[in-house]
């Protein structure tokens, strides 16, 4: 499916379009919730990437980081648009007029931008996770999700390669860069586990062939990440997993601050067009 078709379909929704779930037993609200989880991950990360603009270590990298941010923002819009089409809301209503308690992103996405090492470390983990996820989701029985995933998987493959190369450069670069990227990986590692936790909703959708069982992605994820860390001369952290809760209305402390900034103007003028 082309990008346009995906967007169109997301806008139309199943009421008028040819989507979606093969089984009428599937609750549309489940699909909307699932799309929100993926969309919020992409949106919050895109917001963090937007914070890099004009701050990158080199001008060429500024352009590269913005490209990645734009990919993520595009994914967020498609996913929120689809979630909204199932629940009668627009992408902007979902992005700008939900509180942090109503967001469904994993805590890892909410971590502050940090230095370049923190950004690369997170990009490596998230891109590896999203790549495994979208590759499988592109086979989803839900045509809209499958279409979004087919486009996204190419984008995150590039993000993964970008992050991989920089992880190698930082890990095996100077003592300073090695120290920084190791600290970055250590700091984010407690939040990795949340990405691979499944729940009843996801299981219902997975059974119907619509969603991907997150818990099944951990093995493939490790198989991608471990050799990269090893080649970069980095140590895989052995730390307890944090409790998380981002998918269930227990947001990261960082999220409220991010949303305060992102939503401030839209909320000053509720109902306005831009």
């Amino acid at each position, binding site marked *: 499916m082309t990008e346009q078709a995906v967007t169109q379909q997301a806008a139309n929704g199943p009421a008028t379009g040819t989507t979606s779930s093969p089984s009428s037993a599937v609750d549309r609200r489940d699909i909307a919730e699932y799309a929100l989880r993926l969309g919020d991950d992409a949106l919050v990360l895109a917001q963090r990437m937007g914070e890099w603009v004009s*701050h990158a270590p*080199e001008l060429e990298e500024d352009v590269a980081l913005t490209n990645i941010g734009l990919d993520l923002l595009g994914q967020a819009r498609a996913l929120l648009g689809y979630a909204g089409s199932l629940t009668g809301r627009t992408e902007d209503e979902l992005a700008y007029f939900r509180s942090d308690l109503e967001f469904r992103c994993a805590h890892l996405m909410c971590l502050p931008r940090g230095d370049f090492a923190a950004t690369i470390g997170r990009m490596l983990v998230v891109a590896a996770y999203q790549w495994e996820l979208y590759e499988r989701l592109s086979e989803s029985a839900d045509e809209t999700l499958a279409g979004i995933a087919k486009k996204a998987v190419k984008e995150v493959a590039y993000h993964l390669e970008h992050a991989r190369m920089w992880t190698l450069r930082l890990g095996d670069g100077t003592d300073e860069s090695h120290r920084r990227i190791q600290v970055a990986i250590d700091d984010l590692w407690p939040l990795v586990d949340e990405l691979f936790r499944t729940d009843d909703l996801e299981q219902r959708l997975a059974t119907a062939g619509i969603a991907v069982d997150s818990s099944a992605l951990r093995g493939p994820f490790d198989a991608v990440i471990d050799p990269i860390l090893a080649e970069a001369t980095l140590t895989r952290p052995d730390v307890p997993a944090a409790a998380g809760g981002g998918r269930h209305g227990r947001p990261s402390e960082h999220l409220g601050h991010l949303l305060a900034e992102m939503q401030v103007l839209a909320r000053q*003028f509720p109902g306005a067009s831009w």
Partner: protein
Amino acid sequence: MESTTPTGAPAVDPAHDASSDAASAEFDAVIAADGRIEPRDAMPDAYRKTLVRQMSQHANSEIIGMQPEGNWITRAPSLMRKAILMAKVQDEAGHGLYLYSAAETLGTSRAEMTDALLAGTARYSSIFNYPTPTWADMGAIGWLVDGAAIVNQVPLCRCSYGPYARAMVRICKEESFHQRQGFEILLTLSRGTAAQHEMAQDAVNRWYAPSLMMFGPPDADSSHSAQSMAWKIKRFSNDELRQRFVDMLVPQAEALGLTLPDEGLRWNEQRGHYDYGELDWAEFKAVLRGEGQCNAQRLTHRRRAHEDGAWVRAAASAYAAKQAAKDDARQEVSAA
């Protein structure tokens, strides 16, 4: 044949400075025939210096120009506007890079140009020392600042220096969307709520005069213009371009439903152009001297990004050196 690069620093060679009569005559002939000077051609030293100064200033302007708009990326009021703004600011980084790339063909390295910018010895356009307190500034910058830039830049696509002209062709192609998106932001605000309309008008009030001053001092006071025009780096005078811009703005402002804050603005039947009011050149000079709202802030931001990135650039260089050493070692093994 020489092994100096077609784009890197030319060897110090008297033939490259058009001091020898033959070389000088050839340079003059190319300019007279409206031809293009290419990187390794002989050229007068002053021509080279003028170009490096202008191109690096132009590139610096693109890079510093990312900040006033970057200021709103995280707060853009819709996801579509956020995407457009990110793409636009990214284009500015790209345009800065095209221009640094063109300037490097004259033997001045990016590092030298960056150092000069950060040290405060190289210029960038004064317009970026004005702040962007409201979202409507995104519209006003697109419509007025990019609008003025395009009027300035289109003739540069025929500039006598080939790499500069080629960079400008690419930039103009990409930048035509910038002005349109700015216009669209203002139009949406102008037709929006009363508060939105007021926000748009306020932004136009603040950016109108500074955008007219982007064309530089009146012709009578412009120190570099005559020589640059003789060299066909510049094709039209500051005042000619400013007039073209004003003539363009008036009907567009009407379409926006916004007024231009200029009491002297009226159609002059005799000239076939719009007259416009006196500009406050004292303010222009004050901002140029560093007394604008954001002069210090813009440079501090740029310096910090550069300093914060130093360890990253060093890491990449170190990694590349290690990899190259490994490759060499592998080759030696296979040769033995």
